[in-house]
């Protein structure tokens, strides 16, 4: 049985948030979003971050992506501190952000044509073909984004992120804009991909169900100023299927996480 839980002490792709503090100024007011937020995504694990809307999930992800800097603390991947975007950290955005002037195949190929990770044409074609198949985009290679449904656009974005072979993947509510059915389908597709293409992944979502289905661990944030409320292990067997959602363990975990999200934070509720 495949397991994406790594027991080896390999920390080379571990994403470590250490004592993160962050505030924004808005109309002269100071909004403390994160305060002393510490957690880790061990190498090869798929970790979801959930929390109330506006609690700073995107801010946390943007720090790992290199778009935002923390006021206090540090974000490290392996043993290097993040200081700017890098193709070794792939990002999937909620609004897809695929290039409308490029076809599906050209979108997936984009990163491979840049100086930073240039590959010869034949290799590019192979990689594109591989992710087209993995993401079920066969027959749409020459289509433009405007011809695609939301789910397909997001699959293009995921394929594009995978194509440059990043060591970690950062996904910010990638399925939030999709209807419920498409969303489950996308979760299953992503899950299969993750099992085949093992990579450290940070997945931001506000869907408890989605977090449990995909993750090895779920980090629950408190309300602002956010810190880690609880890290919940998800010991469900791999690979997970539609049936996994119906098991008692799944339902229990969902109950527990939903309870955490519903009840207001008290300092006593904080564990690590």
């Amino acid at each position, binding site marked *: 049985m495949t397991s994406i839980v790594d027991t080896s002490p390999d920390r080379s792709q571990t994403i470590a948030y250490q004592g993160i503090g962050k505030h924004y100024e808005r109309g002269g007011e100071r909004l403390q979003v994160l305060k002393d937020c510490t957690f880790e995504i061990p190498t090869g694990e798929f970790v979801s971050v959930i929390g109330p809307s506006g609690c700073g999930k995107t801010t946390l992800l943007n720090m790992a*992506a290199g778009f935002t800097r923390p006021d206090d603390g540090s974000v490290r991947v392996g043993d290097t501190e993040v200081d700017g*975007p890098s*193709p070794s950290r792939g*990002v999937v955005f909620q609004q897809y952000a695929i290039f409308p*002037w*490029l076809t599906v195949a050209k979108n997936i190929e984009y990163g491979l044509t840049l100086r*930073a*990770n240039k590959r010869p044409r034949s290799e590019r074609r192979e990689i594109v073909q591989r992710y087209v198949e993995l993401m079920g985009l066969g027959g749409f290679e020459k289509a433009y984004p*405007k011809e695609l449904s939301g789910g397909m656009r997001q699959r293009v974005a995921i394929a594009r992120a995978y194509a440059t072979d990043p060591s970690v993947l950062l996904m910010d509510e990638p399925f939030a804009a999709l209807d419920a059915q498409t969303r489950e389908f996308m979760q299953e597709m992503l899950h299969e991909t993750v099992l085949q293409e093992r990579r450290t992944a940070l997945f931001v979502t506000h869907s408890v169900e989605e977090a449990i289905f995909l993750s090895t661990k779920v980090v629950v944030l408190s309300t602002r100023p956010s810190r880690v409320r609880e890290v919940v292990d998800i010991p469900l067997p791999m690979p997970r299927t539609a049936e996994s959602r119906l098991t008692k363990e799944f339902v229990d975990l969902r109950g527990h996480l939903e309870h955490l999200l519903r009840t207001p934070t008290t300092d006593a509720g904080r564990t690590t």
Partner: protein
Amino acid sequence: MTTVTTPSSTSRGRVALANTSSRIGLGILGAIIAVLAWYAVALSGIVSGEGVPRPDEVVRTGWVMITEQDLIFDLRVSMTRVTIGVAVGCVAALPIGYLLAWYAPLRAMAEPLVNFFRALPPIALVPLVIVYFGIGEGARISILIYASFFAGVVVLYEGISAIDPLLIRAARVLGANRWEVFSRTVVFASIPHFFTAIRVALGVSWATVVAAELVAAQRGLGTVINDAASFYRIPDMYVGIAMIGFTALVMDLILRLAQRRLTGWQEKSR
């Protein structure tokens, strides 16, 4: 943002159009209504003095001018001036548009100036142009360049600064360096704005051609109108005006076709 495109929007409160042929049909209907209204005004005599010539009189005069005074040559002269003016003006506007879109402090500095110069009526510049540039072809074209530049630069920097920053982020995380972000992302995302800028500049240039040809021009549609005015040949003025309108219309149509072909990937094209 400045846009000349009319979205065939299906959003609430607007009436959507079924297809291209119905749009063309409605365009022709609009023109017919305008001609009928023109007849009504011309025949009613509500305009005193010289009155308004009927459309058929204008067409007849136009035909005479084409066959006997080589009006087509005037058309070509004006079209050349406008084309050069728009080309030079827009090419100059392009880098400036990018700079202003990219560097907010620069934009804050330049925006009031741009709007100041853009608002000046070209005809007010004619005496100054004569003083500094003389009365040659260059002087006439410089007025058109001026008008094209300021019209184009506004469209460009507004369009370019409205490019979705997420696309730029996406490019950066895929490994694009600064140059690649520009050449492989921003440039493509700006293509629709190039077209809009050219179309707006073209419109402004045709609207300016009469003023530009006040600078001692021998030929050109603007000169036709100016001369007709000095000799009180009212139908001739109408012919010149209609020619400018038609030519501008046709050139815009050609650009729109090219735009549709080159930016077919756009979500809400047309």
